[in-house]
């Protein structure tokens, strides 16, 4: 027993002696540089994609604008996929659209509306603005925290979480009609129902519940539990019309849940990437991390990793366009960019840092 204590003490003494006393300041500076950039994006955009409302007509117009701009870029300056010095590009006018900056980067006029979360006077609600950052307006107004807005098919309604209590967490899923502001509760669990995601075909909604994962029809009918959780899981999105992808928080594993059978399949227990954002069709995952500089894309299961664009230390694949073929992302210079999955058409969209909304209460 004496010897056992001695070994314990020797191990403890060695570890205490070996431990450094102070984290170098540069690590904090670098980390804060990255988190400040994502702060602005998080303020501007909600936490989950898709966040822009695109009707087929407006998206077609936006895609056409992107295509035209891409052609212009190709004719003027060929966009580099190996790390263009975007961060040092000359400042662009905040007005959109704007003329070419002469650097191969052009603000692009995206049509549609942006839903985002903002906290004003301590009240967290859903806000809207036009994609050109005009017409900022409050959509919900409730003392509870309204979060995670997600457009329903057709772009006329937004689904969101309303958290009424933090500890223990109580939240329900609501839908609000954007035109009328009329809210409808899709769940009435008196527990935690949150993180809802719409299936690719727009007919089903999956959501996290304190007891597991539930699926319901798009109107809230037909609710049924499809998975009993043995811990915390975060619903990332639909993998296809028949399964969803989740992250098991205890182990950070990605798992696929088959809705019909409730069977879990581990996707990438020991593989990278383990982060990223699923495309609307559930087929791809966009990501960026310390070993994958710039923007990268992989299959939903982590295979078929390929580089899209850039060589920045850090980029943030913040959202997918509804066509699952374009990405909107930010990098450290405080701008948002649009790029096609093949790396073409790298286009400056808007200035995230300057666009942090300041809506009136």
């Amino acid at each position: 027993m004496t010897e056992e204590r001695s070994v314990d003490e020797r191990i403890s003494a060695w570890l205490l002696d070996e431990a450094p006393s102070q984290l170098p300041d540069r690590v904090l500076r670098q980390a804060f540089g990255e988190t400040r950039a994502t702060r602005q994006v998080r303020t501007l955009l909600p936490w989950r994609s898709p966040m822009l409302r695109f009707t087929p007509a407006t998206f077609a117009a936006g895609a056409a604008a992107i295509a035209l701009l891409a052609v212009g870029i190709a004719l003027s300056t060929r966009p580099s996929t190996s790390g263009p010095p975007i961060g040092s590009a000359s400042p662009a006018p905040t007005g959109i659209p704007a003329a070419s900056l002469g650097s191969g980067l052009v603000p692009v006029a995206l049509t549609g509306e942006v839903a985002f979360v903002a906290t004003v006077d301590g009240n967290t609600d859903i806000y809207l603005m036009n994609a050109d950052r005009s017409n900022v307006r409050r959509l919900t107004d409730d003392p509870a925290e309204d979060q995670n807005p997600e457009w329903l098919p057709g772009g006329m309604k937004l689904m969101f979480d309303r958290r009424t209590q933090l500890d223990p967490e109580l939240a329900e899923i609501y839908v609000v009609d954007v035109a009328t502001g009329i809210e409808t509760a899709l769940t009435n669990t008196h527990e935690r129902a949150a993180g809802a995601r719409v299936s690719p075909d727009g007919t089903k909604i999956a959501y996290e519940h304190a007891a597991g994962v539930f699926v319901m029809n798009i109107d809230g009918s037909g609710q049924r539990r499809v998975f009993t959780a043995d811990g915390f899981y975060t619903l990332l999105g639909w993998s296809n019309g028949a399964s969803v992808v989740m992250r098991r928080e205890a182990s950070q594993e990605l798992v696929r849940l088959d809705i019909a059978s409730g069977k879990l399949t581990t996707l990438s227990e020991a593989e990278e990437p383990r982060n990223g954002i699923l495309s609307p069709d559930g087929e791809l995952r966009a990501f960026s991390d310390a070993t994958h500089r710039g923007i990268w894309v992989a299959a939903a299961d982590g295979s078929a990793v390929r580089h899209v664009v850039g060589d920045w230390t850090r980029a943030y694949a913040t959202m997918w366009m509804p066509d699952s073929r374009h990405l909107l992302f930010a990098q450290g210079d405080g701008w948002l960019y649009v790029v096609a999955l093949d790396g073409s058409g790298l286009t400056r969209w808007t200035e995230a840092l300057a666009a942090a909304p300041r809506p009136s209460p």
Partner: protein
Amino acid sequence: MEQPVQRDVVEAARRGDHEAFEALAIASGDRLYAIACLILRDRQRAEDAVQETLVHAWRELPRLRDADRFEAWLRRLVVNACADQGRRQRRWAAEVNVVHLEPAIEDGAGSLADRDQLERGFRRLKPEQRAVVVLHYYVGLPVPEIADTLGVPAGTVKSRLHYATTALRAALEADGRGVLAANGRMA
């Protein structure tokens, strides 16, 4: 050793208050760095792991469901970041088959033989075993809290701790001859 963070600061950071997050990160940075250094035995990789941890924490903070679990959650993130770093290092080591060691610094705390034998024994442990040793012997967590931090059963923690302690004891009891090298050694 640890000062509990204020719940309201965590809540503010959860809601997107970056200044609150910075305060939390500054308060936790040294501790996270020490944990990462001890697990990885490489300061550069530890810096990368801490940076990854802080960026990941900021991104995932809105999903933290219990502010009182912030510190345990942060420890889990840094251990996971160390595991990621470890995987990259293993791939590198598999190609090169040499792991560079920083030379030991004699500062009078503990015998050089102890340090070298513990170093050698520790480097032979798997990353998950190293994490358990650091959380138990350095952070001072009991087995249930380590299990909670790592998200594994308490029995698994006990098993890892038992194996690791046995291995370190064996390293301490081993003859230190032939262990020392001037500048480095083979992994």
